[in-house]
């Protein structure tokens, strides 16, 4: 058994004041000047800590209010009111919601998993991954206590071709010539997001984070050129196969990715010619025909298939289909062809919460790529100003690589612990066993209609309440 994998986290402060959910409106006009103002009685000392920030015209009160409403409910003049901060509500989009962004910031800052009091406040179910639940074990099946350290839960996965059986030579030793297998201690590979106000320090920071975490950082090969040669084992260059791309692959690199195309075979051949020891991942768009394409690739001996969905967790060619269903469909196709166990399936697109890692795997992936969360960890607000050539409100490109790496390590440290929570409850001790384990998942589409569909018919004149 490998030594226990621990991600060391430490508090790494924001560089800017975070946009917070809470807004307090206090009208000074009409104030009765009470001897004991409710503002001085704030349980959290919010009003005492009040102060204006030099760099941003945001009253710090926004960031500290805990929404207890005591001041609102106690002010004799009824002069204090609360509302949701419009700037907060306007962040992101329907997939990268303000709450998700704020939670990612918090995790990147503290390295801690989000914990709160009271019951779950969200909707019953939702689109995509929100329409599935993970299982737990109770009385009739044992769980694993991974968090408090009583048992070791491994989150490691293998990348590459797994032989169906081990070939031994006559003297009993392992026969040479098996495909190389790469293992990473976390089922997560960092990937450069398609946009972001990044600079050389950001790239260096992400590579540093990948090295500290023992995983890989995937980015276009020309972007990786600026990095020091000793990062090579932790990089996964994406080659477009145009021009001199292959020549740019850093020495010591173990894994490259090429995009799928009709002539993928000749591209693979040219990579093999360059370095036969390289592991090859072929990136297949999550779109019509991906099952057949993946099957062909697997049958032709491609070790790793990367299914790429949209940044909103959808198919690239169909905005009504979710990657959750895409993964299940490709996985099933490969299982039916008896080939799933011999190759690796990675997924990207819209992975925004720790639970998406486990859920992708339950649906059939071996691991996932994390892109935008690694940018949001750097305080990105998903405002997309950078895509229009405008300045970044949080000056991401100015952040040092040390800060970038620490924030990303914090985020994935928190994700790792959340993965342990889910796996512990499921009673699964090895992340490799999560793959395609739909028996440990519950799906809205399988449960909802089955449970409620046959219920009472409604006749004319019935009253519903």
């Amino acid at each position, binding site marked *: 058994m490998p030594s226990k994998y621990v991600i060391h986290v430490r508090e790494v402060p924001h560089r800017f004041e975070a946009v917070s959910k809470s807004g307090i409106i206090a009208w000074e006009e009409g104030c009765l000047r009470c001897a004991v103002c409710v503002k001085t009685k704030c349980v959290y000392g919010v009003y005492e800590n009040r102060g204006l920030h030099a760099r941003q015209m945001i009253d710090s009160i926004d960031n500290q209010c805990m929404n207890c409403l005591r001041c609102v409910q*106690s002010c004799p003049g009824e002069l204090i009111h609360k509302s949701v901060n419009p700037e907060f509500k306007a962040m992101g989009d329907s997939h990268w919601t303000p709450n998700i962004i704020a939670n990612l910031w918090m995790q990147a800052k503290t390295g801690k998993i989000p914990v709160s009091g009271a019951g779950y406040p969200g909707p*019953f179910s939702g689109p995509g991954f929100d329409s599935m639940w993970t299982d737990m074990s109770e009385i*009739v099946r044992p769980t694993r206590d991974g968090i408090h350290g009583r048992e070791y839960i491994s989150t490691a996965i293998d990348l590459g071709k797994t032989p169906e059986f081990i070939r031994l030579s006559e003297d009993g030793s392992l026969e040479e010539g098996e495909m190389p297998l790469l293992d990473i201690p976390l089922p997560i590979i960092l990937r450069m997001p398609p946009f972001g106000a990044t600079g050389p320090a950001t790239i260096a920071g992400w590579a540093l984070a990948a090295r500290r975490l023992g995983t890989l950082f995937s980015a276009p090969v020309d972007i990786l050129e600026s990095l020091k040669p000793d990062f090579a084992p932790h990089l996964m260059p994406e080659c477009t196969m145009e021009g001199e791309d292959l020549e740019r692959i850093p020495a010591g690199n173990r894994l490259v990715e090429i995009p799928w195309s009709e002539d993928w075979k000749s591209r693979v051949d040219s990579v093999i010619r360059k370095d036969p020891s390289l592991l090859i991942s072929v990136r297949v768009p999550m779109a019509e025909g991906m099952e057949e394409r993946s099957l062909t690739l697997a049958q032709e001996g491609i070790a790793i298939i990367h299914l790429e969905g949209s940044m909103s967790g959808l198919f690239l060619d169909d905005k009504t289909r979710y990657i959750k269903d895409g993964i299940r469909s490709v996985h099933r196709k490969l299982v039916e062809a008896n080939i799933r166990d011999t190759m690796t399936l990675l997924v990207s697109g819209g992975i925004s919460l720790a639970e998406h890692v486990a859920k992708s795997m339950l649906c059939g992936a071996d691991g996932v790529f994390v892109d935008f969360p690694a940018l949001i960890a750097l305080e990105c607000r998903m405002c997309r100003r950078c895509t229009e050539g405008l300045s970044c409100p949080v000056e991401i490109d100015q952040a040092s690589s040390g800060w970038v790496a620490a924030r990303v390590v914090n985020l994935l440290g928190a994700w790792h612990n959340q993965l342990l929570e889910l796996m512990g409850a499921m009673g699964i001790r090895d992340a490799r066993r999560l793959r395609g384990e739909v028996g440990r998942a519950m799906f809205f589409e399988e449960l*909802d209609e089955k449970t409620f569909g046959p219920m009472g018919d*409604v006749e004319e004149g019935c009253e519903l309440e």
Partner: protein
Amino acid sequence: MLRRDVNLNNVESFQLPGVVRTPSRFRNPIGKYRLHRSDTCTACGKCVELCPTGVHVVRRGKVFVENHHLCVGNDCPDPCHKACPEGALTLRRNPDFDGMGDARWPADLLASTWHMAEFGKVPDKGLEYKLGASGGGFDKLRLVFRKNKSAFEEVADDDFDMGVVLNRRNDHAHRVRTEVPFYGGGMSYGSVSITTMLSRIKAAVALGTFCCTGEGGYPDELKPYDDHVITQVATGLFGVREETIQRVKIVEFKYAQGAKPGLGGHLLGDKVTPGVARMREAVVGYPLFSPFPFHSVYSVEDHKKHVDWIKAMNPKALVSVKVSTPTDVDMVAVGSYYAGAHIIHLDGSYGGTGAAPDIAKKNIAMPLEYALPKVHQFLKEEGVRDKLTVIASGGIRNPHDVAKAIALGADGVCTGTADLVALECIRCHKCESGRGCARGIATTDAELMQLIQMEWGTQRIVNMFLAWRRELVRILKKLGMKSLKELVGRTDCLTHIDYMKKRI
């Protein structure tokens, strides 16, 4: 104090408590609307005269908007702001109200629960008190009232049988029954203040039902109410002593908690105050881990050993088994029955907690609405449904949820969050931060605890549950039933608006 025995033989002597109006403990209660009165007001008194809920008050020749929270806004049949001869009144939504609440507990549901806790009846206008906004489960299920079902229209409310028999095995254990179809779910000493704990238990005594201590010990202050206390044995075994097991009529094993199924608990060192440490038989300032699962239970046989252990110490005790809702929850329920349990308590994934990882609350285990019919059906097929009491909890917010849970297959329900909302919890989700609950409910901070008086708390909870009971009676009348028992498992009385089939 007179001790009332909750024994089947003494049903006759039980009387429900009365409603006593118990307003908010804060100066400015939060309502949905705000009325603004401008300087042009001539104090003619028209608005005072018109308002059916007493929003306006005359004092020393001037009229004030004193009770914003009672205004029903556009639902008002004769709105003051339209009738004002001077045009001095304007109606607006309250911005505080719109910033409050969430999908499970929208602001309307919070405010209507506060209304019930103040007045002992459901709000008749202005607030949606029957449904939340979660977009599924209870919030998409509807009770179906068919025509010509008014046989019990004239029967007095008190004559409806709303009780639940908790010992259906008919063994030698106590023959316990509750007078209302709900009892208080476990909330430990430490997670809530002793005042909150006592308010809940005193309300349970008045309503002829029970309240659970949670894991964290059995404070001496609860002793006068032993007959209404359920003591909990959870995985940390904190505060479990032979003497506490022998004091009560019902002992609850907590195998899992809906909000954090499959996970253990962690009480931070700071929270282990001398009082908490004494109660939990631990050391002051050291963090306490409640493991998951019981490290002595990995099978139904092990579980039986646990149940036998309780029965050896207190042979007349009822044993309740609190579990959450994995896919094989039906197997767990049947296993619990064969191990000797009287009550299977299903805690669904929307249950409350003092603190739990968000990832667990959202994702682990299935919603209660799926688990209930599954368990009910499986127990029926096994032929043991009549021998086991099924209690549902985890997301029961209002009387309609109670009726729906019972129609899905429960005998009764457990509540927790609703009790706290009656005490003016606003679900800020910060139970654990800093000195604990800023509103004085879930805290052990000496100063914050003072925000609640026990009599106030008890009456608020009693009022809310009287409103629930009254509403449940109204529902039964419309269903043509006289006893809540008739509703158990009657899924034909429910329809889901997404799959509703109209038969004409």
